[in-house]
């Protein structure tokens, strides 16, 4: 392959005969002066002039920065996601800044030395939950990573946000692996049903499908698990772990919700596709709700012991179940996708959740 090395230019430039075409003859916008806001120079601050215009359809498939003066003979990078609505969300720029600003370290920011010995059953429950979370979190890095190189560079802010998600999920995988190994327990059991859901996300045939399954459904559930974990933590150490993870996860869910909204507003005809993706995802989620390795550790942490959890029965997990389904329905509604009366979840799971069943209009 010829890269077009111009030997004569080397000779001319050595004599001081510069080309200067890039300086005198460029089509990109000049004279732009972005003004920092009070937290620094944000993506919103540089969303100005022609640089702030994100095309609905990318005209080229290059890595050239949007707004730059692109030479005509640039190679085609083969991007397959070239429509803005496939990846965009109105809160994208703010979520990116938030993600960068609110990073934390699983090594430095968790007071590991303050872990306290727990009742062996409670420690086992915490370790089993940590095992599941360490398992599921990495798919939320694998999925964006799988699609990042297919997304047109004109939507670079979406790519940048997904990069923050990859880092967030690496840290979540790290922190739960560390928790499982830090207090006398160890890793627990990985189940086939969880792996099947992760496979569904990873093997999604489109970004639409994978994002709905992961950002909206899967991460919404994990967000509720983090929230419950923070409330049920046996010590301030676990409380801090879950609280920090909850903040990160809520950003991903906020992107997924607003991305779906953006997508549906521009092409309502794809709503049925999304319903179909979620139909399938919910069927596996229903199986997860009946997976002992997830249900029972949460119930034991909520009740404080195996005996107390057994006495409470389903009541120990009712709060979590209602929160997961209720928040999911609200996010779907905000995105413009009404799942009421369409949920592929058994009655035992949606029981008591306001709005889970469509009201019959007389």
């Amino acid at each position: 392959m010829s890269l077009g090395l111009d030997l004569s230019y080397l000779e001319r430039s050595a004599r001081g005969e510069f080309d200067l075409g890039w300086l005198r003859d460029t089509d990109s916008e000049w004279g732009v002066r972005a003004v920092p806001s009070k937290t620094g120079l944000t993506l919103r601050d540089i969303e100005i002039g022609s640089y702030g215009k994100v095309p609905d359809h990318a005209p080229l498939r290059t890595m050239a920065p949007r707004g730059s003066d692109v030479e005509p003979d640039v190679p085609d990078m083969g991007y397959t996601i070239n429509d803005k609505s496939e990846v965009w969300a109105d809160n994208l720029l703010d979520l990116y800044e938030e993600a960068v600003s609110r990073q934390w370290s699983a090594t430095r920011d968790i007071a590991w030395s303050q872990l306290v010995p727990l009742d062996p059953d409670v420690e086992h429950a915490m370790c089993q939950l940590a095992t599941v979370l360490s398992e599921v979190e990495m798919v939320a890095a694998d999925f964006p990573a799988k699609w990042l190189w297919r997304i047109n560079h004109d939507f670079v802010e979406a790519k940048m946000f997904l990069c923050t998600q990859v880092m967030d999920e690496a840290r979540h995988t790290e922190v739960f692996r560390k928790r499982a190994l830090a207090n006398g327990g160890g890793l627990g059991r990985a189940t086939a049903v969880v792996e099947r859901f992760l496979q569904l996300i990873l093997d999604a045939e489109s970004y639409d499908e994978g994002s709905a399954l992961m950002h909206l459904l899967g991460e919404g559930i994990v967000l509720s698990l983090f929230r419950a974990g923070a409330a049920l933590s046996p010590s301030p150490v676990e409380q801090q772990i879950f609280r920090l993870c909850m903040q990160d996860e809520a950003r991903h869910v906020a992107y997924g919700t607003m991305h779906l909204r953006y997508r549906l507003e521009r092409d309502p005809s794809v709503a049925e596709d999304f319903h179909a993706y979620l139909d399938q995802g919910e069927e596996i989620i229903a199986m997860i709700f009946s997976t002992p390795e997830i249900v029972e550790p949460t119930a034991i942490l909520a009740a404080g012991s195996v005996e107390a959890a057994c006495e409470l029965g389903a009541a120990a997990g009712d709060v979590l179940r209602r929160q997961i389904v209720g928040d999911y329905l609200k996010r779907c509604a905000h995105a413009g996708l009404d799942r009421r009366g369409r949920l592929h979840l058994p009655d035992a799971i949606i029981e008591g959740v306001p709005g889970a069943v469509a009201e019959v209009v007389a």
Partner: protein
Amino acid sequence: MSGAAAPFPSADWFDALVLGATADQAAIERLGTAELRFGMEFVLADGSDAFYGLVLDGYDIDAVGPTTEEAFGPEVVISGPLAAWEEMTGWIAANGPADSAHSLNGLSIAGIPFVIRAPDAMGSDKFYRFMGTLQAVFDAGVPGASGAATPVGAGQA
């Protein structure tokens, strides 16, 4: 702390809360930027209520109130009996940073005693996105509290 004697809830009490929470500005900045209009409703024994707000704006924190929910325009509201609020702030003042049972999250997750309400899903999700900052405001700012503003950055301390 200058606002230690202020009645709860009151404008003076919330001013003292913000003053205490921002005394260590570096700790607030380590938590990261936040953008949220957070409403707090105090339901009194006679059924009436009082309403205050916190505005998280970048690294700035401002208290608003007394006001009304309509006037404040919150993205999310946490509402509960005054007695539960007093129990929470009293526990933090006496013991330092809230444990799970006395945190904003712990007190609201079951809908008892606190309830979270928001005009839309984005509002309630913002409560989750900025939970660390909101809790740090109370942990460090409750008049009489001696807790650190944030465990983030506290490392192995």
